[in-house]
C-alpha cells in the first residue's frame, strides 16, 4: 500500500487514452493498518500544559517549504529540522531554524535563522550578524564542538550541498565546509546527520544520511500526471534511486576524511535515509548509529570497536514493523521508556500506520512492543519529529510527536494536531486527547521539533517547525510539585560537547538512562542538557559514563537545579531553576 491509496487509484486508461498514470512502486510505505482500540482512560491528571508563545517570543519568520498550495518535488516536502543550542555559552537556549525553498520561485526572505535568547521569554533574530543568512533546501542539523574550542559548531544537510559552520566564539560563524574537506562535487539530497566520536579519539566525527538521488532534470515535476502519480503529485521516494550514507572521520586539525567505505557504511543495502541517531544501543561503550529509513528497512550500524561498523538492524529486530513490513521511517525518539537502563527507540511513520516502539533488552536486541505498549491506537496522522521527554516531571519519559501532511494539494489532511502519549509506567502508554493545552491541539503541517528548557524553569518546552508558517514555541507550564534535575556535561579528554556520554540517574525506586545525542526527533537537535523528571524524589544519584569510558558518580544531588559537570572534575557549578510567575 502506498500513499496513492489515500487518493484512490485512478482507473487505468485504456486504448486511445495515452495512459499517463501512477506506478505501483511509488510513494511512501504505509501498512494500511487500523488503529487498535483505546483502553479505558487512566483518569490521572496531566500536569503539563502547552501554550504556543512563538509570536510573543518574536519567532515570526515563516519557514518556507515549497508553495503553500502544492509541492513540486520531494525536496520541498521533506524539510526541515531545528536546534536548541547555546551558541554563546550564556546558559540560555538559543534557536536555530532551518529553511526550505520553492522550486523556480524562491522566497527572497527565506533563510536559516538564528535567534538569540533574550532571557526574558523573547528572542532576537541574529542571523545576519552571526553570518548565517543563507537560503536553499536545508533538512537536518547537528550541533557539536568539532574542534574542541568550547563553542558549539553547526553542520547542516541540504540539497544540493551540506554546510559546516565553525563557531568563532564571538557570536559569529564561518562556513568552513571546503576547508574541512566536506564539500561534495555533485549535488546530494542529504538529510540525517549526527556528530559521533565513533573511534573514541576525543574528536567528533560526522555521519550523514541521504534520502534519494535527486536530479530535477530527470525526476518529473508534480502538477500534471506523470510516471509517478496520476494525480500529479511529486515523485518519490519509492521508484527513485537510494541516497548513500557517509561517514567522515575528524582528523583533529579542522578537517575530515571520508571513511565511508573503510568503515563499512557503504556495504549494506542503503535505503531512503532520514533522521540519524548515534547512541550506544548495545551498551558496550562504543557509539552505534541508527538511521530511520523511509519505505525501506531502517538501518542499525553496530560499532565493531575497530573503526568499522556492521549493519545489523534486521537481525537485531529494529528494521521492520512487528509484521515484518517496511515503514516510512521519519523521526526518532530515544529514551529509556521502561526505566530499565537501556535505550529504546521510537520511530514515526506515515498515516495508516502506527509509530513503532523497539524495546531494547540492554544488549542491543530489540522487541517490537508497539501494540502491547498502547501506541497502536493512533494511525491518523503522518508523524515526523518526536521526543522522549518527561513532560510533567513525573519521573517517566513521555512521548511527543508532531504531524503534518506532505501534499499541500490535500488541504484537509495537510494540517494536523500534535500527539502526546503519557508514560503510565510498566511499559504502557496512553494517548492524551484534549488535556494538554491549546499548543497541542493546534493544527499545522509540522516536521522537526526540538525539546529543551528555553526559559530555565525546570520543565521541557518544545519548538516545532511548521511548513510555510512561523514555528510554534510551546511553553510548558507544569503544575504540581514534581521535581526535576538537569545535567550539562563538558568533556575534557572526551569531546567537549560530551556527545555520547551516558547518564544513569537513580531516584526513588526508578533508574533512567539517557545519552547526550546530537540528532534525533526529525532531523533536529535537542537541548544537550539532559532533563530528568524525578517525580516526588528530592534528590538523585547520578552516574556518568563519559564518551572515552571514564565513569563518575555523584551521590544525593538535589533536585530543582541544573548542574554543570566537567569530565573528571565533578560538579563545577549549578543553577537553580527559575520559578516563573
Amino acid at each position, binding site marked *: 500500500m502506498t500513499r496513492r491509496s489515500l487518493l484512490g487509484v485512478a482507473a*487505468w*486508461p*485504456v*486504448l*486511445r487514452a*495515452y*495512459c*499517463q*498514470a*501512477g*506506478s*505501483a*512502486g*511509488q510513494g511512501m510505505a504505509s501498512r494500511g493498518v*487500523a*488503529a*487498535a*482500540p*483505546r483502553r479505558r482512560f487512566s483518569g490521572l491528571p496531566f500536569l503539563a500544559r502547552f501554550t504556543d508563545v512563538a509570536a510573543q517570543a518574536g519567532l515570526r519568520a515563516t519557514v518556507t517549504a515549497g508553495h503553500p498550495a502544492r509541492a513540486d518535488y520531494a525536496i520541498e516536502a521533506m524539510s526541515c529540522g531545528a536546534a536548541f543550542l547555546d551558541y554563546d555559552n550564556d546558559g540560555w537556549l538559543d534557536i536555530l531554524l532551518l529553511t526550505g525553498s520553492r522550486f523556480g520561485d524562491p522566497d527572497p526572505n527565506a533563510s536559516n535563522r538564528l535567534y538569540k535568547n533574550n532571557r526574558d521569554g523573547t528572542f532576537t533574530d541574529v542571523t545576519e550578524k552571526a553570518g548565517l543568512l543563507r537560503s536553499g533546501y536545508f533538512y537536518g542539523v547537528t550541533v557539536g564542538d568539532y574542534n574542541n574550542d568550547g563553542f558549539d559548531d553547526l553542520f547542516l544537510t541540504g540539497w544540493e550541498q551540506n554546510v559546516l559552520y565553525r563557531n568563532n566564539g564571538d557570536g559569529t560563524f564561518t562556513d568552513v565546509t571546503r576547508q574541512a574537506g566536506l564539500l561534495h562535487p555533485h549535488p546530494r539530497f542529504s538529510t540525517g546527520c549526527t556528530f559521533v566520536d565513533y573511534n573514541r579519539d576525543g574528536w567528533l566525527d560526522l555521519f550523514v544520511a541521504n534520502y534519494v538521488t535527486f536530479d530535477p532534470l530527470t525526476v*518529473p515535476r508534480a502538477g500534471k500526471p*506523470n*510516471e*509517478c502519480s496520476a494525480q500529479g503529485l511529486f*515523485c518519490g521516494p*519509492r*521508484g*527513485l*534511486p*537510494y541516497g548513500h550514507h557517509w561517514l567522515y572521520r575528524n582528523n583533529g586539525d579542522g578537517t575530515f576524511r571520508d571513511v565511508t567505505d573503510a568503515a563499512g557504511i557503504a556495504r549494506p*543495502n542503503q535505503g531512503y535515509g532520514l533522521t540519524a541517531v548515534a547512541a550506544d544501543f548495545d551498551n558496550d561503550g562504543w557509539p552505534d548509529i541508527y538511521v530511520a529509513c523511509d519505505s*525501506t*528497512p531502517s538501518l542499525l550500524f553496530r560499532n565493531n570497536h575497530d573503526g568499522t561498523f556492521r549493519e545489523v538492524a*534486521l*537481525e537485531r*529486530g529494529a528494521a*521492520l514493523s*512487528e*509484521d*515484518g*513490513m*517496511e515503514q516510512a521511517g521519519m523521526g526518532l525518539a530515544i529514551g529509556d521508556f521502561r526505566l530499565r537502563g537501556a535505550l529504546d527507540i521510537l520511530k514515526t511513520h506515515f498515516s495508516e500506520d502506527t509509530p513503532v516502539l523497539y524495546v531494547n533488552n540492554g544488549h542491543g536486541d530489540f522487541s517490537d512492543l508497539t*501494540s*502491547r505498549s498502547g501506541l497502536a*491506537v493512533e494511525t491518523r496522522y503522518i508523524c515526523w519529529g518526536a521526543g522522549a521527554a518527561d513532560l510533567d516531571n513525573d519521573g517517566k519519559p513521555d512521548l511527543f510527536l508532531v504531524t503534518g501532511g506532505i501534499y499541500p494539494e490535500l488541504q484537509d489532511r495537510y494540517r494536523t494536531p500534535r500527539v502526546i502519549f503519557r508514560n503510565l509506567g510498566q511499559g504502557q502508554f496512553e494517548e492524551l486527547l484534549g488535556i494538554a493545552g491549546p499548543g497541542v491541539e493546534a493544527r499545522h503541517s509540522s516536521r522537526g521539533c526540538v525539546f529543551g528548557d528555553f526559559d530555565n524553569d525546570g520543565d521541557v518546552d518544545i519548538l516545532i517547525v511548521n511548513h510555510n508558517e512561523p514555528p510554534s514555541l510551546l511553553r510548558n507550564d507544569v503544575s504540581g510539585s514534581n521535581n526535576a534535575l538537569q545535567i550539562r556535561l563538558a568533556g575534557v579528554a572526551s569531546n567537549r560537547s560530551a556527545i555520547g556520554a551516558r547518564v544513569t540517574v537513580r531516584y526513588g525506586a526508578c533508574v533512567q538512562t539517557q545519552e547526550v545525542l546530537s540528532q534525533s526527533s526529525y532531523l533536529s537537535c535537542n537541548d544537550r542538557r539532559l532533563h530528568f523528571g524525578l517525580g516526588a524524589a528530592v534528590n538523585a544519584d547520578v552516574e556518568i559514563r563519559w564518551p572515552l569510558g571514564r565513569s563518575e558518580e555523584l551521590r544525593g544531588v538535589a533536585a530543582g537545579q541544573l548542574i554543570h559537570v566537567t569530565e573528571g572534575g565533578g560538579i563545577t557549578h549549578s543553577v537553580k531553576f527559575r520559578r516563573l510567575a
Partner: protein
Amino acid sequence: MTWRSRASILGIGFYLVTGPLAAQQGPIEDAWTFLRSGQRGKAVALLQEIIRQHPSNPDARLLLGSIWTEEGRRDDAVTELTEAVRLRPGSAEAQNALGEAYLKFDEPESARAPLERAVKLQPGFSAALVNLGAALLRLGEPVAAGSYLDRGIAVLKGAAEGAYPLYLRAKIHMDRGRAEEAAADLNRAVKLRPDFPEAWSDLGEARRTLGDDSGALAALQRAVALAPDDAIAQYRLGSELLAQGKAHDSLEHFQEAVRIDPSDQSALNGLQRALRAADNAQAADQVKDKLAALFRAKNAEDRNSVEAIRLNNEGAALEKGGDLRGAIQKYRDALALCPDHTGIRTNLAAALLHTGQWSEGVSQLREVLRREPGNGKVRAALNEALSHPPPLR
C-alpha cells in the same frame, strides 16, 4: 470459501426442485441429483444438453453458471448467469448468483448491481444480503456493508450460514479499532461453525489486540489445526508464540508459512527472529539473506515500474505525433520492464492493431483480459478487433 459456494448451489437446487416451475424441471432435477451424488461431469453434460435444446431455459443456465462459478471458469459463469438474468430478470436467485460470481472473481464493482437488484426483489434473501455486504466491504463502504450484513444476520438467526456475515462484520469492527465487538462476533461465528478456520484466525487476532494472550493462542491453534495450509494462520500463531517467548514452538509455524509462500516477508522475518531467539544464528542469517534479497528485488521492481511508465508516456507522445512504430518500440521496452502492467500492454495492443499487426494485437488484448478478466473496455476492444479480422490472403 468453498463451503459457502457449495451452500450457494445447494440453495439454487432447493429453489429449483421446490419452486413454482418444479413440475417442468424434471431434467434439471436429474442434473441436481447428479450433482448431489458427486457426478459433476454428468450434471454439466445434462445441463448443456438442456440448454442446447432449450436455450431460453433460465434454470439450466442458472445452475450451470453456478457450477462454473465454483469451478473458477469466470467467462463461462458470467455468460450463463447473465443470460439467466436476462431470461428471468425478476429472479432474485439469478441476480444473486450473477453477483456472487462477480464477487468470486474479484469484481465487486460488477457484483454490486445484480446483488442490489436481488435484495430489492427479495428483501429477506439472506444470501443476497450477505453477498451485497461482502461486495460493499470490498468496495470500501463499510457502513453500507454493515447494514446489509446486519440484515443478513437477522434473517439467518442462529443458522450455521450466519457465521460468514458475522465474520465479515467482525472485520469492519477490527478496521474501526473495535476489537471487543469483533471478538464477540467471531465468538458467535465459531459457535455456529466450529470448522470455520478463518474466523478462528481472526478471533485470535482480536484477542491478541485485546491483550488476551492465552485466548489468542487457543484460537490460533484451532485455526491452524483446521487449516494447516493457511499461511496467515500459521504466521499469526508463530508470531503469538514468539511474542510469548516460545521461540522454539514458533519455529514450525513460521517454517510452514514460508513453505506455503516462500516470498512472504512477514513470515521470513518472523522465522529469522525466531531462529535467532532459538540460538540458531546460522540458519537465521540464511533467512535474513533471503529477506534482504527480497527487499532488493522490490526496490528494483519499484524503479523498473517508474522507468516503464516513463517509456510508456514517451510512447504515448510518439503515438500522438503519428509515429506508431516508435511508439510500439517504447511500449515494448516499457513492458519488458514491467510485464504485469496491463495499461502499458493495452496501449501496445492498440498500437499494434492500428499498424495492422492484428494477430499480436489480439493476443496482447487476450493477455490483458487473462490478467484482468473484469476489464469491460478491453473486452469490448477485443470483441471489436475479433469482428474485424484482416482479410485472408
